[in-house]
């Protein structure tokens, strides 16, 4: 309960001893780094999985030795079986969506930066904060554990549609304990996210330092705050969904399983459930989830751009913030656009379609704010800015695909084609990742007190950006041709001609993956060998640049922080720290 942990903020001094310092630390900075590290690890696992199935799609009879070692039945001699292909796709989606994209930009950077940006010494409930990380960690271990149980990970996709996910092992390999662990893992992740969101909300509202009015919050803080509300409400619905799914599997209930199902000539002992109920509950969470993933990227980019163009965003904090609020709100009433062809009431399809299209308006406003802020700017193309620009380009491209999938009529052709895969990789996948990279390069000096290597960072960007388009724009195009997603082999008369195209995608994807090792090397090398970072390497104006790199245990060395200015008071080379006393400004 929050109540019991409240005093932690009051009493805990700097911890002594390795365990309290680096493992079970209540310091939001350590927890933020723990989250970030977890998601980097998860990201490379997820990427390795995608490598495996991309290789399989490009060269169906390729033998992948490592895979053979990982799973004897899944990939005998390294040759991937169809079921293992689906398992890999499932776990790629699960790990990336939950443990990378939801964890890193929100829980990772948010934990580290939000308290500093509002001028607090720690989160509102530090012990709760520590709990939510370790709960997430347990969830992650459960997800990974599925690889090491006999029948392997589940194969029902990250959306785990019932009844395939609900009837148990009879539905196929991995649908036994694999799916159980999956359900538990996600349920646990829900709890962690709820606790995290609660902490973010209270910290932003109650722990702002003197003068840090809501209108002076950095945009990134706004994004995390809005996002915390979205997660709070969305995960509150995914939690029961997972619990009911687990009940169907282990308790013999029939929430999502109708009567009269015959699998392998076995009559299933269920009746009266509804697969559509699962889809509704899942997507009620699932659509806000994609915004939970992208909103922090919005915030990070909106936070970084002014620093590197040396001028405020068009419309100041208000326009971009209200755009994010509108997006967050609308995200709850559009989930049905994932279900246009699912057998949902066709009239509801229209009800969901219109607000979906209307999300375009705040999205376009946000995009134009970033775009037109560049007008007559002094753009400095350091790595964080390059990734921010990349983010804008990717987000535009991804948003465009939304027009096709938001309309039932066009979606009925494009649904479940690779067009969808391309679309969501652009919007919530790569946009969020680019936002995360931008944030990583931007805040690394603050987090670790060392600069990252600019050259390697630029190489990382110049290789990643075009490769992203090679992979996922091509998927859009094959989607127009009607290439179906989640096929482990292209055996149809229709799909077979697309094998060369898929080979091209695979090559690009492998290169894209390989490029990320430049980032990994850069991060690790700079962590230990990078040049000392000054307190404010980028000339930012927000509070995190107003303390040492890395910040002391209580973030500001016991100074009284008083804020007099908004977060983006840039004017060319001149800029005003949020804490600069009015007199000092007059002086400059």
């Amino acid at each position, binding site marked *: 309960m929050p109540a019991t942990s409240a005093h932690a903020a009051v009493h805990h001094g700097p911890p002594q001893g390795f365990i309290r310092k680096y493992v079970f630390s209540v310091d939001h900075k350590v927890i933020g780094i723990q989250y970030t590290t977890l998601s980097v690890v998860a990201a490379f696992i997820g990427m390795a999985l995608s490598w495996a199935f991309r290789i399989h799609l490009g060269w169906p009879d390729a033998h992948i030795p490592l895979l053979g070692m990982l799973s004897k039945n899944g990939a005998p001699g390294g040759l991937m079986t169809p079921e293992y292909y689906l398992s890999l796709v499932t776990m790629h989606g699960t790990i990336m969506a939950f443990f990378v994209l939801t964890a890193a930009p929100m829980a990772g950077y948010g934990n580290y930066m939000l308290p500093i940006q509002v001028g607090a010494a720690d989160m509102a409930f530090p012990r709760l904060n520590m709990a939510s990380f370790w709960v997430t960690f347990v969830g992650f271990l459960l997800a990974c554990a599925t690889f090491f149980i006999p029948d392997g990970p589940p194969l029902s996709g990250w959306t785990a549609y019932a009844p395939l996910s609900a009837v148990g092992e009879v539905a196929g390999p991995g649908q036994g304990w694999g799916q159980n662990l999956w359900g538990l893992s996600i349920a646990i992740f829900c709890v962690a996210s709820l606790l995290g969101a609660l902490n973010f909300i209270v910290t932003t509202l109650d722990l702002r330092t003197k003068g840090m009015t809501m209108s002076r919050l950095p945009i990134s803080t706004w994004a995390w705050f809005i996002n915390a509300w979205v997660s709070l*409400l969305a995960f509150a619905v995914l939690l029961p969904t997972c619990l009911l799914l687990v009940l169907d599997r282990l308790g013999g209930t029939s929430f999502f399983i109708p009567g009269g199902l015959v699998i392998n000539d076995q009559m299933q002992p269920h009746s009266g459930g509804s697969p559509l*109920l699962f889809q509704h509950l899942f997507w009620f969470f699932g659509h806000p989830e994609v915004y939970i993933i992208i909103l922090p990227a919005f915030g990070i980019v909106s936070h970084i751009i002014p620093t590197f163009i040396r001028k405020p965003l068009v419309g100041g904090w208000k326009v971009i913030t209200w755009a994010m609020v509108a997006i967050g709100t609308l995200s709850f009433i559009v989930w049905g656009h994932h279900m246009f062809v699912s057998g949902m009431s066709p009239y*509801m399809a229209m009800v969901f379609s219109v607000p979906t299209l209307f999300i375009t308006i705040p999205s376009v406003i946000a995009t134009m704010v970033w775009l037109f802020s560049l007008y007559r700017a002094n753009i400095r193309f350091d790595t964080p800015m390059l990734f921010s620009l990349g983010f804008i380009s990717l987000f535009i491209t991804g948003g465009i695909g939304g027009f096709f999938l938001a309309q039932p009529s066009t979606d009925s052709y494009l649904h479940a084609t690779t067009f969808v895969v391309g679309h969501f990789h652009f919007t919530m996948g790569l946009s969020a990742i680019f936002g995360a990279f931008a944030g990583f390069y931007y805040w690394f000096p603050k987090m670790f007190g060392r600069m990252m290597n600019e050259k390697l960072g630029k190489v990382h960007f110049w290789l990643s950006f075009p490769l992203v388009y090679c992979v996922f724009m091509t998927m859009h195009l094959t989607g127009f041709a009607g290439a179906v997603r989640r096929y482990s082999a292209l055996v149809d008369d229709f799909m077979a001609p697309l094998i060369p195209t898929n080979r091209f995608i695979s090559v690009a994807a492998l290169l894209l993956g390989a490029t990320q090792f430049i980032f990994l090397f850069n991060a690790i090398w700079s962590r230990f060998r990078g040049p000392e970072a000054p307190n404010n390497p980028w000339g930012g104006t927000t509070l995190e640049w107003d303390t040492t790199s890395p910040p002391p245990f209580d973030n500001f060395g016991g100074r009284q922080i008083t804020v007099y200015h908004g977060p983006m008071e840039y004017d060319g080379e001149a800029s005003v720290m949020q804490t600069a006393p009015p007199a000092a400004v007059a002086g400059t």
Partner: protein
Amino acid sequence: MSSNRELTMSSYVGIGVGLMVIVGIEVVLTYQHLEPRTLLFSLLSLACLEAFVAVLYLMHVKYERPILFWTIFPATLFVLTFLCYLWPDAFRMASMRLLK
């Protein structure tokens, strides 16, 4: 922190009795052989009334700043309202069942 000074303990007892009376009404309604739909809606509205009293007085939102109410109430109501989008499919399920 003296937010629930406003009411004396006895008036709280009054509220408690009132809530129990509502529960009584609910029970009586249950045995009036009403249409399930009518019964459901009357029970729900009574429950909402109870909940409202509980939020305002037991959880003394009435004596907090209004902004607290205007934060928690719309958020919760928002989710519960739009979850209603799944009712059409619940009714379709009854009408389109494969096995009657």
